[in-house]
């Protein structure tokens, strides 16, 4: 078994106990309720290299005006360019040393782990644990780009952990450009991000995931928000063998706005699983969730959207929508909205739909001279455009749109 080699690893006490927790559970299988459609059992068949020293480098395909770029290549992180004033990049131990109060907050964090054994695995073995720290009132003008790239010649697990900390009134646009080489050997990319957004702070976070077929990417993005903070989150799952996104919002303040936008276009032999949690723990906040999927070939999609409205969270507005188009009769979509509401004065709504392209619309377009493939491409792009259009960076919007079109055209054989 792949995990056999883990038993021999010796770690400091805390990391060792995380590893022990992982070993006790192993990789999730479809017998686990939260992994019903997304078994990772087959990861057991690969002899993973747990600590790769292979080099990998690739320039981001994005051409954007950025403040600076953080590169992660096969789990090794380097900073390129100068950090904007008021932003620090440092390791976690150093950060805690400078913010002793945070150690307690961090220790008391209470993520909903939902049978997430890979969080423990990351906790034990992450090759780096870095922090991006935006100081009080600092408004970073240009986005900070994080290019995360993996390519290996021996099957390897790549695991990093990143903390993003926005102090009171800070503003940041963060772009996660996640990718792996199409001709890489198997990669288990296990990525944890823990994000703190303090009072009055505003984070825009755009995550693009564009991996090779041999990559299994498990993403854990846990965001904690304080009073009057805003987070606009985007997750674009464009390519990859298996992508599981665990996106959690912990609403720990009042008048908080949490926007969750997602788009996925899995193709042949690909699976995208979006597991989202919005945990309203305080009153008077608002969350808006909009997910759209186009499922190509024989792909599988999973959407599980949990919304908790705790007893104290009166006057919460929580909205959730997940809409899907099955572009082929071999594609499957599994949707499960889960609302648990303990407060009585709230507005919550949810809706999921899964359908096919309208024959009427296709005929209408073809009757005007548009080929069947072009008509389908136009309709599918139009279907997801609503999510792409919310991104306010034109070059990024265009890059995402082009990649979605290319993927659809490839699936249609254009």
């Amino acid at each position: 078994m792949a995990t056999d080699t883990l038993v021999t690893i010796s770690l400091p006490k805390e990391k060792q106990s995380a590893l022990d927790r992982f070993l006790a559970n192993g990789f999730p299988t479809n017998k686990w309720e939260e992994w019903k459609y997304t078994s990772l059992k087959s990861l057991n068949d690969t002899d993973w290299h747990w600590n790769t020293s292979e080099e990998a480098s690739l320039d981001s395909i994005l051409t954007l005006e950025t403040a600076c770029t953080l590169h992660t290549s096969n789990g090794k992180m380097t900073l390129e360019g100068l950090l904007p004033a008021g932003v620090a990049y440092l390791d976690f131990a150093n950060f805690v040393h400078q913010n002793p109060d945070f150690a307690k907050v961090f220790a008391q964090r209470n993520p909903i782990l939902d049978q997430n054994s890979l969080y423990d695995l990351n906790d034990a073995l992450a090759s780096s644990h870095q922090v991006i720290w935006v100081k009080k009132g600092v408004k970073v003008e240009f986005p900070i780009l994080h290019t995360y790239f993996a390519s290996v010649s021996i099957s390897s697990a790549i695991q990093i952990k990143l903390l993003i900390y926005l102090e009171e009134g800070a503003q940041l646009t963060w772009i996660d450009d996640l990718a792996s080489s199409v001709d890489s050997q198997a990669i288990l990319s296990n990525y944890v991000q823990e994000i703190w957004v303090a009072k009055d702070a505003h984070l825009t976070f755009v995550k693009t995931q564009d991996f090779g077929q041999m990559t299994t990417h498990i993403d854990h993005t846990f965001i904690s928000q304080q009073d009057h903070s805003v987070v606009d989150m985007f997750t674009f799952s464009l390519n990859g063998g298996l992508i599981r996104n665990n996106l959690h919002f912990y609403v720990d303040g009042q008048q908080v706005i949490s926007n969750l936008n997602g788009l996925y276009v899995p193709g042949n032999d690909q699976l995208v699983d979006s597991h989202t949690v919005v945990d309203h723990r305080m009153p008077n906040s608002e969350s808006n969730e909009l997910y759209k999927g186009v499922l190509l070939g024989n792909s599988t999609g999973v959407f599980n959207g949990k919304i908790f409205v705790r007893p104290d969270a009166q006057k919460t507005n929580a909205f959730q929508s997940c809409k899907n188009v099955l572009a082929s009769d071999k594609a499957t979509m599994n949707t499960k909205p889960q609302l648990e509401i303990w407060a009585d004065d709230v507005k919550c709504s949810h809706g999921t739909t899964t359908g096919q392209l309208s024959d009427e619309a296709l005929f209408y377009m073809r009757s005007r001279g548009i080929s069947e493939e072009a008509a389908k491409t136009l309709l599918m792009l139009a279907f997801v455009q609503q999510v792409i259009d919310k991104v306010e960076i034109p070059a990024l919007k265009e890059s995402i749109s082009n990649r979605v079109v290319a993927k659809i055209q490839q699936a249609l054989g254009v």
Partner: protein
Amino acid sequence: MLSIANLHARIGEKEILRGINLEVKAGEVHAIMGPNGSGKSTLASVLAGREDYEVTDGTVSFFGKDLLDLAPEARAAEGVFLAFQYPVEIPGVSTTNFMKSAVNEIRKYRGEEPLDAVQFLKMFKEKMAYVNIDQSLLSRSLNEGFSGGEKKRNEIFQMAVLAPKLAILDETDSGLDIDALRIVAEGVNKLKSPDNATIVVTHYQRLLDYIVPDFVHVLYKGRIVKSGTKELALELEEKGYDWIISALVD
């Protein structure tokens, strides 16, 4: 231009067209009239290539080509245009983007260079005048939330842009008030030329006050049972369809 011979078509087990014969020449306007359920819209749909219908017999030749053998998009590229009775709403696709795709796909089919943004702008401006349509309508999602009149005007705008050789107007008058009807009809009339032809499918005579036909055909139970000139339409308006139907030996 168009030659329909012994056309039979069905949907599921139900035979709807039962031997249509029709000749349309360049420069002509033909009206197809008939009571509900006579097969008027089916004929329009079969000519445009709607796949719900199965052609079981007969031929349709368009400038010598077997029209029935062509995909809907190829028919459009050859010069057939169907103005829909119920134009489809397409969220997220603007009329201008839709028309740009259509024009350039058709140009590709014909081996012509695609038009660029400037050329489109010029053409759209010119065609918008035909149907008195506003730019803001063309930037909105196609037909989404349009009124009945706006939808039909949009159809005629599309027709103006594509400049078909054969335009088939399927119940274009349905859902239109008299002012909208006049605007739409004026657009159609402006687009008429000695080189193109129009088939107007309608239940009522009133559209024919504005788009004057050279020939009127009465469709009943999937066949053309009577043909005449525009006077026939006036007679139908006055006397209804019964006098024709009762004279038939089925």
